[in-house]
């Protein structure tokens, strides 16, 4: 085995209280040459202030179109151990819950066939196996399958759905995020493994409007729990908060976005018809207030990073949908969207960009949804776009011709 290279710059990153990724690479390097190679190449990057990875070629496992990111060094002669350094994306268990057994199994596989380095987890949520060679892909895949794991997505397919901890440990979860995430992952196996879309498609499930999985910012489809009826109030606990010194007027009511709460020093009145389920009052007084009982989710569409047409947040498609297995209403909607996107989406056009290009009105028509004012944030409108919109669909042409009198001399 080669020696661990000298890394004076990286060594600086072993200092300080936050856990050090350099220490982690060094740990792996104690037993793995690829990790040594990575240390050497990364030190070079630190010295030269530039990355040394080349564009990936297409690598993968049989029958799957996604799940592996090919990666090659441009300093292969200096660091032959990382000449090939592909990552594998492994679909994580919903909510990122593990048994120690499962963790050890993953380690065994990866110690045998890869660099011994991982990300727990990648930004999309996968377990990232960081660095291996092409010949190891199939053996790894076989052992993962055996251990009950599967690959995640990459390329133009469904990406590994992810969710917040939800009902497993959160009192605010308005539906079972982990169950839905598992169901979507299973239902859309084909779409996950065989890239056939115009571009990637991400699902993220949050149990309530707090959105602990940042679904509204980074999922093509954001499924965010909410409720329809009244906030559940425990008046006794409200009083305890007040007695405990909480300034309910200033910290709760005045911060309510619709000013629909009123505290008269004794009772808390909520005009639930104007509550927009922002969760603020509930998070300030979790013992006293809870989401209502008629629960479901808001379905939003289209968030993404800035390339090409600008960063997007997801926008409201269905203000409220029940979230009960088998989630048929949701799946019907998903499939209608995919049909339309598959037919009209341009190469590398995310669904959010498509909607902007064809217009939300036309998109709704195509997928068979009624337009609703909840879909629109009118503060940002300028009174121009509507000239076209102000046109009722179709008019019988013809008869007006006669009436027309404008003659140009």
């Amino acid at each position, binding site marked *: 085995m080669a020696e661990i290279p000298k890394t004076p710059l990286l060594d600086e990153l072993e200092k300080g209280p936050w856990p050090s990724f350099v220490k982690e690479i060094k740990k792996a390097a104690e037993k793995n040459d690829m990790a040594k190679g990575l240390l050497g190449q990364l030190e070079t990057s630190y010295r030269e202030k530039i990355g040394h990875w080349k564009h990936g070629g297409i690598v993968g496992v049989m029958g799957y179109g996604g799940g592996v990111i090919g990666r090659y060094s441009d300093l292969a002669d200096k660091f032959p151990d990382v000449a090939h350094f592909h990552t594998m994306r492994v679909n994580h268990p919903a909510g990122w819950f593990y048994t120690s057994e499962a963790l050890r199994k993953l380690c065994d596989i990866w110690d045998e066939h890869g660099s011994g380095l991982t990300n727990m987890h990648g930004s999309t949520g996968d377990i990232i196996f960081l660095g291996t060679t092409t010949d190891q892909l199939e053996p790894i895949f076989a052992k993962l399958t055996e251990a009950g794991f599967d690959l995640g997505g990459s390329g133009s397919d469904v990406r590994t759905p992810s969710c917040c901890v939800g009902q497993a440990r959160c009192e605010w979860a308005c539906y079972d995020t982990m169950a839905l995430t598992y169901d979507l992952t299973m239902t859309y196996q084909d779409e996950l493994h065989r890239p056939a879309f115009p571009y990637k498609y991400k699902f993220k499930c949050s149990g309530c409007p707090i959105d602990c999985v940042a679904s509204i910012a980074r999922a093509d489809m954001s499924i965010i729990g909410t409720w329809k009826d009244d906030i559940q109030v425990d008046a006794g606990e409200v009083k305890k908060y007040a007695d405990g010194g909480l300034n309910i007027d200033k910290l709760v009511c005045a911060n309510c976005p619709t000013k629909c709460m009123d505290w008269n020093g004794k009772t808390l009145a909520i005009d639930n018809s104007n509550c927009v389920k922002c969760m603020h009052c509930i998070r300030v007084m979790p013992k006293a207030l809870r989401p209502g009982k008629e629960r479901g989710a808001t379905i939003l569409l289209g968030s993404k990073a800035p390339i090409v047409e600008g960063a997007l947040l997801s926008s409201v498609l269905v203000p409220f949908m029940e979230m009960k297995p088998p989630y048929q209403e949701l799946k019907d909607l998903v499939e209608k969207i995919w049909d339309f996107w598959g037919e009209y989406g341009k190469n590398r056009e995310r669904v959010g960009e498509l909607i902007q290009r064809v217009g939300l009105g036309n998109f709704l028509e195509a997928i068979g949804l009624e337009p609703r004012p909840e879909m629109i*944030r009118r503060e940002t409108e300028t009174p121009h776009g509507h000239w076209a919109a102000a046109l009722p669909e179709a008019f019988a042409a013809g008869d007006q011709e006669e009436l027309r009198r404008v003659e140009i001399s």
Partner: protein
Amino acid sequence: MIKKNYGAWKYHEILSAGVMVHVAESGDKVFTVRAGSPRLVSTQTIRKFAEIADKHCGGFMRFTSRHNAEFMVTEESKVKPLVAELESAGFPVGGLGNAITSIIHTQGWVHCHSAATDASGIVKCVMDDLFEYFKTTELPGKIRIALACCLNMCGAVHCSDIAILGIHRRPPKILDASLKRLCEIPNVVASCPTAAIRPATKDGVPTVEIDENLCMFCANCFTVCPALPINDPLNDGVSIWVGGKVSNAMSEPRFSKLAVPFLPNNPPRWPEVVAAVRNIVEVWAKNARPFERIGDFIERIGWPRFFQMTGIEFTKQHIDDFKHAGLTYKRSTQLRHG
């Protein structure tokens, strides 16, 4: 009096519908009486104003930025006779404070070639109907109505509490025979905001063609080229926009938003337009908090509720499809349910 206290006014008070007083640092007072005018006035009427100014106000008067007539006197005792004279001459006193004042408007069929509707006629009908609100000072706040007879929007209606806007709904007709003679084809092509117009040749004559799917009926091509008439008795009509404002008081100035995509031209009394405006005014008057303009009110209750309360149907037409449209999609879960 005004010269003497120029720049040295201290405060004002609204005394009754159409009457206010300004008090100067010096203690001097000036009482203003505001009277409605049809804006389109004959010289007879102007001479009548002059006569009243002479009789009551030392020969002075002014008009407001919304085309009302204002007469000023320096003693409280002179207010009553002045009001009486104005009313009896047919100029109702009001429109001051939290009231509905005159409707800003444009030419319509009286003088403009572009008009998709008449201006003065609708204004007359709506003001007749809302007259009680001209004569009050008790509304939650001010409310500004404006009308423009085409998208050129000479009334600058785009920031009004309620905007009445004439619209076309068909692409222009192309008078192929005279087009080349009357218009510069490259200018015509360039005038179209949606690039719907292309040069073409018909029967060997150079002309243009219009992609009907792209045309948004803005009439900008007609403005530069008379051979593209767009007026159309069947399909022209009126749309209604709400929630705009100009002043910086409380909330920032904002654009009006589409409420009713289309109402027919139904002269001479435009009953559909009159009813639609009254409906919106009443929902606001009953439910708004003090100082809330229509837009502030809607901002608080949310657009979905506004559609619910007014019974106006939300349709595909309400969804913006201009190039900034994406910014108008609702990108949060802050929604009212049930």
